[in-house]
């Protein structure tokens, strides 16, 4: 009966109570939404590269190697020689190896030289392979395959010409050797979407007339001649490696790290991703803190609503007192009402969250490549909801105690 009366009292103040519940619901949806985005982002981040056992590059830091080789952020401090690459490729533990050559750009996008094996070996999101949305992978020397974001941003279609710029912030174009778009990749949500992929030989081809980072004055080798040339690179930026047996990963990593011919670094992508996420995690913590504060603000709003309703409810409390309710029963009623508001808000919040996820999931995936999983609430989320209800009951103690004191003073003889 008391629960029914509490619900009735809430219904009688439907507008203010509804607004309070909505505020709690939105804050809960935001908090859990941030949690979903956080876990989704973490999963997407971890899924940027999958199925690659080692990444090898010139010796630097593991995070730096990961950043430039996978995320196309920053630059390599040095390259690894083609001899070292071949030496590693010839090792018995190595199942496959894919070279990566970075350095040039097209508009704001990085150009990556590699072999066609990249399309077969590069995996993301738990082993998902790259897929061609339109066209085909490179067949000719000056063919290029572009990521989905490159095509969408620049409005490129199959057959469109592309001129690669030398370096990352250069005004000098390799305009004498334009590329032709042969394929556009499907969206992956990884840095591949923002990459212009050409063959390793093409990288060499556009640098035929270049020496020491500058074009040789007066020299312009015809394309037909370039096509006849032996276009073997002198160095590559990094390489992705798959081993025959997982048991051999650490042995191969140690061997590469102790490679005597040149200082190299081999990293485990998963470990480096974790290191990188720890750095990014500071922002994650800040995001959780902000959304947590939104929940606290909503609960304080509820407290203010209860406070503001106390005066108009003095008669109601006096009726309870007249019927024999102790002041603490009045206190309990207000706490129960607050807990009900918080509980309804929490349930509505989770409903809003799942509705939002259902609507936003495909759009977020398409726009940002961020996959937000729609799964049953986790135990952690359950505890969050329980925590919101408990916190609602706790903050309501402040106005409830005020009501307790008022009902002690008023007794049953309130005349307002």
């Amino acid at each position, binding site marked *: 009966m008391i629960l029914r009366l509490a619900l009735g009292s809430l219904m009688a103040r439907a507008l203010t109570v509804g607004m309070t519940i909505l505020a709690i619901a939105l804050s809960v949806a935001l908090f859990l939404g941030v949690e979903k985005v956080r876990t989704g982002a973490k999963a997407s981040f971890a899924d940027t590269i999958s199925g690659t056992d080692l990444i090898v590059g010139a010796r630097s830091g593991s995070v730096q190697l990961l950043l430039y080789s996978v995320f196309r952020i920053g630059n390599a401090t040095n390259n690894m020689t083609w001899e070292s690459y071949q030496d590693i490729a010839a090792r018995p533990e190595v199942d496959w190896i894919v070279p990566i050559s970075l350095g040039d750009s097209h508009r704001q996008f990085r150009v990556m030289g590699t072999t066609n094996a990249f399309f077969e070996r590069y995996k993301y999101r738990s082993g998902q392979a790259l897929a061609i949305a339109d066209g085909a992978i490179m067949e000719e020397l000056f063919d290029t395959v572009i990521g989905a974001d490159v095509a969408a941003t620049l409005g490129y279609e199959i057959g469109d010409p592309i001129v690669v710029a030398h370096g990352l912030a250069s005004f000098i174009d390799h305009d004498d050797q334009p590329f032709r778009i042969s394929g556009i990749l499907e969206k992956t949500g990884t840095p591949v979407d923002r990459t212009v992929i050409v063959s390793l030989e093409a990288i060499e081809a556009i640098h035929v007339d270049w020496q020491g980072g500058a074009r040789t004055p007066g020299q312009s080798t015809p394309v037909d001649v370039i096509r006849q040339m032996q276009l073997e690179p002198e160095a590559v930026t990094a390489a992705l490696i798959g081993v025959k047996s997982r048991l051999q990963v650490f042995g191969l990593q140690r061997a590469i790290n102790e490679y005597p011919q040149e200082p190299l670094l081999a990293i485990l992508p998963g470990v480096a991703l974790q290191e990188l996420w720890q750095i990014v995690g500071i922002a994650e913590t800040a995001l959780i803190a902000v959304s947590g504060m939104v929940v606290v603000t909503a609960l304080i709003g509820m407290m203010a609503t209860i406070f503001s309703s106390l005066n108009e409810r003095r008669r109601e409390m006096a009726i309870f007192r007249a*019927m*024999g309710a102790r002041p603490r029963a009045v206190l309990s009623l207000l706490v129960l009402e607050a807990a009900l508001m918080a509980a309804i808000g929490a349930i509505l919040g989770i409903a809003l969250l799942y509705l939002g996820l259902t609507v936003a999931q495909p759009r977020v995936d398409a726009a940002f490549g961020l996959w937000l999983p729609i799964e049953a609430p986790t135990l952690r989320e359950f505890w969050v909801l329980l925590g919101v209800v408990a916190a609602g009951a706790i903050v309501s103690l402040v106005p409830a105690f005020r009501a307790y004191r008022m009902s002690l003073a008023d*007794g049953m003889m309130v005349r307002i």
Partner: protein
Amino acid sequence: MGTDTPILDLKDVRYRWSGRVSFGLDIPDLTLQAAETVLLLGESGSGKSTLLSLICGTIAPQSGAVSVAGTDIASLSAGRRDRFRAEHIGLIFQQFNLLPYASVLDNILLPLRFAPQRRARVPSPQDTARMLCQDLGLPDDAIAAQAGTLSVGQQQRVAAARALIGAPPLLIADEPTSALDAATQATFLNLLFTQARAHGSTLLMVSHDARLATHFNRVVQMADITKTHRAAA
């Protein structure tokens, strides 16, 4: 409680409002017998509300005894006084004394929630509530209606049903007819007297309307039973 034990007995009661030294109430003697109907007449500010609060135990006198059904409620703790009030006193207020958002049934059953002994006297609370509504002339479908949707006269009948349920030995009515028109007033009083008699309850009604005196066994003037102290401002 013996048959000759008064239902209400105030002896040498002295009360001063805390922080209001200008007002005090002294009641040397006031006694109400079982099944008696008493009209307590008094002007505004004569201390009627303070007297009701003392009888109901929401305030305690500085000295003296307030006995209800043989128990000195002034000697009880605050919590036990609340429980005692719920068990032994049925209250009817002037107006707006129902929970407007609750159903008529919930309003009538509310005192039983805080009074287990009174509840035990009502084997079937819902049936009893329905019967009380019928006896007080409320329409059959009123029991499920929201109290706030009823007319003022109907609300007052619901308040009477709430006070009567579980047959408390003492009914206190604080100006229950002041918001009613003359015809409704008479009907309500007749119903209230009939039900009070049927339940064997003592009725103490507080009013400033001396015209009601003919309905009661006895009329008590506040001025006759109290020594009200008002200090000069």
